[in-house]
């Protein structure tokens, strides 16, 4: 009797198991830097929605803090052991993680870098990301167009990310300068330009506090600054506070990159002039679809023509459109924003 019972239980479990395996034959992993940053939260939403639509199983992993490399490596190993078909990865340490990524690819998984290219980018099967140089270029062109003839006498503050000059910071900074019409010198390095219109570069760590301090420092160098490039919208909000404290918030043009909801709201309120919006949700949902395609017949995603990655798009958000620069309104930006 007891034996029979156990046997029945076994049968039930194995049927249930195979039924589950049929419905969710493809499983995928999403590994982000943290699970608290709204950018990654949105990314997970996109991945979950796409996985549900395609009937895939999604497992999400995240580092404890930005820069938590070990947890990401452990997550990759778990995904391999779990028999996942593919991994979407925003790497904290873009060069060190390549070993673990190679392991996954050797085990037959497709690895797609989301948002942050690996170092080298070819370490992943594909990269789905924002074109950060283009993002910078859009706000640069917009700022130059807003100033018109005065662009020749602009006083520009460059509020960058970190002294180590991570790729994303360099691409946005150099893109902005290119768009504004300034000679880049070495396009891989921030701060080596000799154009007299640039007052200086300072670093913000991408947050409000850093943005305020950096802006104060550059204002002490030259109080007549009238164009401010910022790495992201929190830094822009901090810069605005510094300008407000000396009563200059209304005669300075602040531009930024990201497209988070607080940032878009700040455009509506006139804090930021324009921002280049990126799309984490689209990155993740396209990533999941690419894994599904790979699982079905082994096709690998192709790069956007003329770029060495798959461009998930960027749009300039502003309520003051400039001639010759394509943009979307704050209302449209709000519909697409994250965070």
């Amino acid at each position, binding site marked *: 009797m007891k034996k029979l019972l156990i046997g029945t239980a076994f049968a039930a479990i194995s049927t249930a198991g195979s039924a589950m395996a049929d419905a969710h034959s493809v499983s995928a992993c999403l590994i982000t830097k*943290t699970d*608290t*940053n*709204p950018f990654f*939260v949105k990314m997970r939403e996109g991945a979950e929605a796409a996985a549900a639509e395609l009937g895939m199983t999604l497992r999400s992993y995240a580092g*404890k*803090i930005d820069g938590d490399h070990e947890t990401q490596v452990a997550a990759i190993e778990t995904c391999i052991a779990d028999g996942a078909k593919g991994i979407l990865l925003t790497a904290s340490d873009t060069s060190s993680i390549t070993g673990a990524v190679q392991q996954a690819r050797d085990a037959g998984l497709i690895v797609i870098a989301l948002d942050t290219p690996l170092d080298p980018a070819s370490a992943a099967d594909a990269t789905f990301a924002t074109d950060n140089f283009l993002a910078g270029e859009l706000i640069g062109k917009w700022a130059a167009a807003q100033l018109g003839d005065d662009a020749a006498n602009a006083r520009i503050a460059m509020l960058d990310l970190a*002294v180590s000059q991570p790729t994303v910071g360099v691409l946005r900074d150099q893109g902005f300068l290119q768009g504004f019409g300034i000679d880049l010198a070495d396009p891989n390095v921030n701060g080596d330009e000799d154009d007299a219109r640039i007052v*200086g570069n*300072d*670093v913000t*760590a*991408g*947050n*409000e*506090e850093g*943005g*305020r*301090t950096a802006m*104060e*420092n550059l204002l*002490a*160098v030259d*109080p007549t600054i009238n164009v401010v490039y910022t790495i992201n919208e*929190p830094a822009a*909000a*901090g810069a*605005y*506070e510094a300008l*407000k*404290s*000396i*009563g*200059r918030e209304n005669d300075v043009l602040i531009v930024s990159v990201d497209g988070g909801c*607080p940032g878009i*709201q*700040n455009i509506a*309120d006139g*804090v930021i002039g324009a921002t280049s919006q990126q799309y984490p949700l689209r990155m993740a949902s396209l990533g999941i679809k690419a894994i599904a395609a790979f699982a079905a017949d082994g096709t690998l995603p192709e790069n956007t023509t003329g770029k060495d990655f798959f461009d998930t798009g960027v749009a300039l958000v502003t309520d003051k459109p400039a001639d010759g620069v394509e943009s979307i309104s704050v209302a449209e930006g709000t519909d697409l924003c994250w*965070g």
Partner: protein
Amino acid sequence: MSGKADDYEAAITPSASESVATFAERKGALSRVQHALHVNPALVPLFVLVVSISLFGLLLGSKFFSPFALTLILQQVQIVGIVAAAQSLVILTAGIDLSVGAIAVLSSVIMGQFTFRYGMPVEIAIVFGLAFGTAIGAINGWLVAVMKLPPFIVTLGMWQIVLAANFLYSQNATIRSQDIEAEAPLLQFLGTAFKVGAGEDGRGGATFTYGVIAMVLIFGVLAYVLGQTAWGRHIYAVGDDPEAAQLSGVNVKRTLISVYAVTGFICAIAGWALIGRIGSVSPTSGQLLNIESITAVVIGGISLFGGRGSIMGPLFGALIVGVFTLGLRLAGADAQWTYLLIGALIIGAVAVDQWIRKVSA
């Protein structure tokens, strides 16, 4: 008797050579300096501060040596300064608090979220924020004093716990400056600025914020409390030798718990000042406050072994860091040079501390 003394003086005067007199005088001056440093260790950082201000003033002229730039430094160091005041109390008891920055940030998040998420009156939300900081501090103190766990370990753990709680609770969402200004301006109270000697257009001149004044007040109050009250003297006694303090009738446990609680309270004030400074409530700020506050305390000449140091030292320490940061920035130097020089200052400060101790011993 006086006649005899006169005779004695008369007898030695001709034999005293010039060189002996010089030697005696030099020794006297040096020992006076040593003595002064020993009695008031804040003199070293004060000296470094004055020298660095003069140096940058000479180098950069009016760009740096202006009321605007000099008060800007005060504004830039106010948060680190307030946290350093809190850190000093713990370090005086021979402890260390790694959770200060996390407590400050989560307190500010609580003030903001209680107002905006739960619709609480802003005054009540601020009280909750301050109470939260105090409570976390008291827990630290209890773990150190009663459970006898090392402060480094306790606050290392608390740092992680509070930081994780901060991100989980806030969902990393920023509350925008414009919303706070419209609905709960009291949160930005410590950011209120007033100018002295500004130009017609309201530019230039010295700018002070209530946060800067709060920092100076906190240092003033702590200087009084540490020097003039029993509780203050007990802190030094506990830091110097807890067993001797216990035997002399000091309630060591209660002193330690209260020190950590007051530290948590001051950190929560720093969190409030942080909202004033950056305008918004941002869970990602203040990540390096613990290291920066320890730096200010060490440069300020407070001994990490406890029981020795002046509370004004960390204020000068924080200002030195601020002067170097802005000065080097204005001089156009790479930001890395600031860190390099601060690193040298930290080691220099500890070396001077040891030297003073050796000479006086």
